[in-house]
C-alpha cells in the first residue's frame, strides 16, 4: 500500500471521502436548505468527473493487482458520474414536492456511485463482491426513501430480499471459483483456466452462480420478478438512477469477469446465454404491452433492454467478435442511460401527489400543451424502440450486427421481431400524448427540464456521429483483454 496505489484510484477515494463529508455537513444544514446538500454533492461529482477525465484511460494496477484502471473503467465511470449528476437534478425538486426531503439521499447516491466505479475497477472477485454490496445497499435505502408510503416500503423490502439473495449467489460462486483454482484474482483464474489445472466442475458451477447473481441485478428473465414492483414502488428519481446504475454495473461485472476468465466454458454457457437472451427479449416486450402504469411499463421495457444487451453478449467467447460485441454493449449502455434519464425526467414532472399522474392515460394532451416536453418524450420513446435518427437505433443496430457476426442469426431475428412488438407500447405513449385531448398538470422545474431537453438533444445529436462514439467504446474494449 503506497501513495501510488491511492493515486491510481484517486477519483474513487475523493468520491467516497466526499460522500462522508456531505453526510456530516448535512447534519448542520437547516431543513429548508437541503438544496445545499444537493449542490455540494453535485460539486463533488463534477470534481470527480474532472479527475477521472484527467487521468484518462492509461492502464494501471494498484493494491497488489486487485484493482485495475483502464479505458473500460473510464468509459463506464463517465456514464456513472454523469448519471449521478442527472440523478441529483431529478431528485431535488421531486423530493421537496413529495415532502420526502431528507439530506441523506445525496450521500447515499454518492456511495452508490462509488460502488459502481469500484465495480469497473475490479480485477479480483473479492472486489467484485464488495463493489456489488457497496452499490446495492444505498439503492435498497433509496428505494424505500418514501417513508410511511406502503408501496415504497414494499419495494424496498422486495429489492432488499432479492438483491441480497443475488449477492449471496454471487458470493457462493466466488467461493466455488476460489475452491476450483486457489485464486480470487482474475489473472490467476485466467492462468488456471488456461493451464487446465483447476477443478472443471467447480469452475462451471461457480460461473453459473455468478451468471445467475448478475442476472438478478440486471433483470434478466427468469430473475426479473422484482423489477416491476420495485420500479413502481420506489420514488421516481431513485428508480431512474437504479435502472441505469445497477444495470450498467451488473453488465460491467459480467463483461469483465466472463470475457477475461470464462472463454473456455463457452461450450456450456453459450446455449444458456442464448436462451436467457431470447426469453428476456420476448417476455419483457410482451408483458410491457398490457401495462397501464408508465413506471411499470418502463420496468418491463428495462427488462427487454437487458435482453438486447445480453444478446450481444452471447458470442463473448469468440475472440474475433467479442471486442465488437463489448463495444456494442458499451455503446448501447450510453444510449440507454441518456434515454432513460430523459424519459424519467418527463415522468417526474408529470407525477403528482399520492402517486397520481402515472398512468399512460394521464399523458393525454401533453404534446399539445407542453410541446417541448412532448417532443422530448417522443424522442425518448423512439430511441427506446430503435427508430432511425436516434441514438437507440444505432445502439440496436450495433447489437444486432454483432449477434449476426457471431453467427446467431436466429437470436438477432428474435430481437428484431420483439423490437417491432415494442414499437406498439412505446408509440402508444406518443399517440396518447398527441392524439387525445387533455390538460395534464405539469410541475415544471428547471433542473428536471434541463435534464430532459439535454438528454433529448444528445440522443439526437450523437445519432449523427455514431462512428466516433463507437470508436470510443472500441478503444475502451481494446484495453480489456
Amino acid at each position: 500500500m503506497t501513495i501510488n496505489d491511492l493515486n491510481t484510484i484517486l477519483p474513487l477515494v475523493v468520491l467516497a471521502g466526499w460522500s462522508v463529508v456531505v453526510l456530516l455537513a448535512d447534519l448542520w444544514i437547516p431543513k429548508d436548505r437541503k438544496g445545499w446538500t444537493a449542490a455540494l454533492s453535485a460539486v463533488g461529482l463534477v470534481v470527480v468527473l474532472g479527475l477521472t477525465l484527467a487521468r484518462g484511460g492509461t492502464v494501471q494496477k494498484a493494491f497488489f493487482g486487485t484493482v485495475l484502471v483502464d479505458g473500460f473503467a473510464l468509459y463506464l465511470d463517465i456514464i456513472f458520474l454523469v448519471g449521478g449528476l442527472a440523478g441529483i437534478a431529478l431528485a431535488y425538486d421531486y423530493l421537496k414536492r413529495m415532502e420526502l426531503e431528507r439530506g441523506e439521499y445525496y450521500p447515499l447516491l454518492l456511495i452508490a456511485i462509488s460502488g459502481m466505479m469500484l465495480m469497473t475497477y475490479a480485477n479480483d472477485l473479492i472486489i467484485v463482491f464488495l463493489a456489488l454490496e457497496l452499490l446495492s445497499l444505498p439503492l435498497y435505502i433509496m428505494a424505500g426513501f418514501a417513508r410511511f408510503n406502503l408501496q415504497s416500503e414494499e419495494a424496498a423490502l422486495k429489492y432488499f430480499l432479492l438483491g441480497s439473495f443475488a449477492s449471496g449467489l454471487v458470493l457462493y460462486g466466488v467461493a466455488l471459483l476460489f475452491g476450483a483454482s486457489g485464486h480470487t484474482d482474475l489473472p490467476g483464474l485466467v492462468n488456471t483456466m488456461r493451464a487446465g489445472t483447476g477443478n472443471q466442475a467447480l469452475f462451471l458451477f461457480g460461473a453459473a452462480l455468478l451468471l445467475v447473481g448478475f442476472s438478478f441485478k440486471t433483470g434478466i428473465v427468469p430473475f426479473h420478478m422484482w423489477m416491476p414492483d420495485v420500479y413502481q414502488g420506489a420514488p421516481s428519481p431513485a428508480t431512474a438512477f437504479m435502472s441505469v446504475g445497477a444495470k450498467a454495473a451488473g453488465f460491467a461485472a459480467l463483461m469483465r469477469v466472463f470475457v477475461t476468465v470464462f472463454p473456455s466454458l463457452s461450450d456450456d454457457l453459450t446455449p444458456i446465454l442464448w436462451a436467457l437472451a431470447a426469453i428476456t427479449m420476448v417476455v419483457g416486450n410482451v408483458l410491457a404491452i398490457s401495462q397501464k402504469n408508465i413506471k411499470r411499463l418502463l420496468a418491463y421495457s428495462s427488462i427487454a433492454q437487458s435482453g438486447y444487451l445480453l444478446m450481444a453478449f452471447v458470442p463473448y467467447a469468440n475472440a474475433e467478435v467479442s471486442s465488437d460485441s463489448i463495444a456494442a454493449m458499451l455503446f448501447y449502455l450510453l444510449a440507454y442511460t441518456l434515454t432513460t434519464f430523459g424519459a424519467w425526467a418527463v415522468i417526474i414532472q408529470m407525477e403528482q401527489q399520492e402517486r397520481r399522474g402515472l398512468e399512460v392515460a394521464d399523458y393525454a394532451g401533453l404534446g399539445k400543451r407542453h410541446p417541448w416536453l412532448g417532443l422530448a418524450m417522443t424522442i425518448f420513446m423512439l430511441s427506446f424502440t430503435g427508430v432511425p435518427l436516434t441514438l437507440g437505433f444505432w445502439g440496436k443496430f450495433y447489437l444486432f450486427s454483432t449477434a449476426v457476426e457471431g453467427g446467431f442469426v436466429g437470436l438477432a431475428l428474435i430481437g428484431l421481431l420483439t423490437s417491432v412488438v415494442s414499437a406498439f407500447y412505446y408509440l402508444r405513449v406518443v399517440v396518447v400524448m398527441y392524439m387525445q385531448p387533455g390538460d395534464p398538470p405539469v410541475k415544471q422545474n428547471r433542473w428536471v427540464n434541463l435534464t430532459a431537453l439535454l438528454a433529448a438533444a444528445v440522443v439526437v445529436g450523437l445519432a449523427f456521429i455514431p462512428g466516433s462514439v463507437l470508436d470510443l467504446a472500441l478503444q475502451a474494449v481494446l484495453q480489456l483483454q
Partner: protein
Amino acid sequence: MPLAYYIGLSAVMFILGIMGVLLRRNALVVFMSLELIFNSANLLFITFASYYQLLAGQIMVFFVMTVAAAEVAVGLALMVEIFRTKNTINIDQMSQMKG
C-alpha cells in the same frame, strides 16, 4: 477430515438457505436464510483457505462478515418500518402493486 465433508456441509447449508428464501413467507425468516447462504459461502472460503494454505480466503470471510452486518442494519430497518405501517412482515401480503 476429508475436504468433501466440509464442502458437503457447506452445500447443505447453501441449499437450505435457498429453500428458506424460496419457501418461507416471513421476511425475517427469509432474511435468516440469506444469512445462512452467506455463512455457507464463508465455510467454503475457510475450507479452501486451509486446503490451499492461502490467507486470501480468510480475509474474504472478514469482508463478508462486515458486509453481512451492514445488510442486517439495512434489512432490519426496512422490516421495522414496514411493520409499523402494516403490522405484518409476511411477504405474501406485500401486494400493493399489481400488473
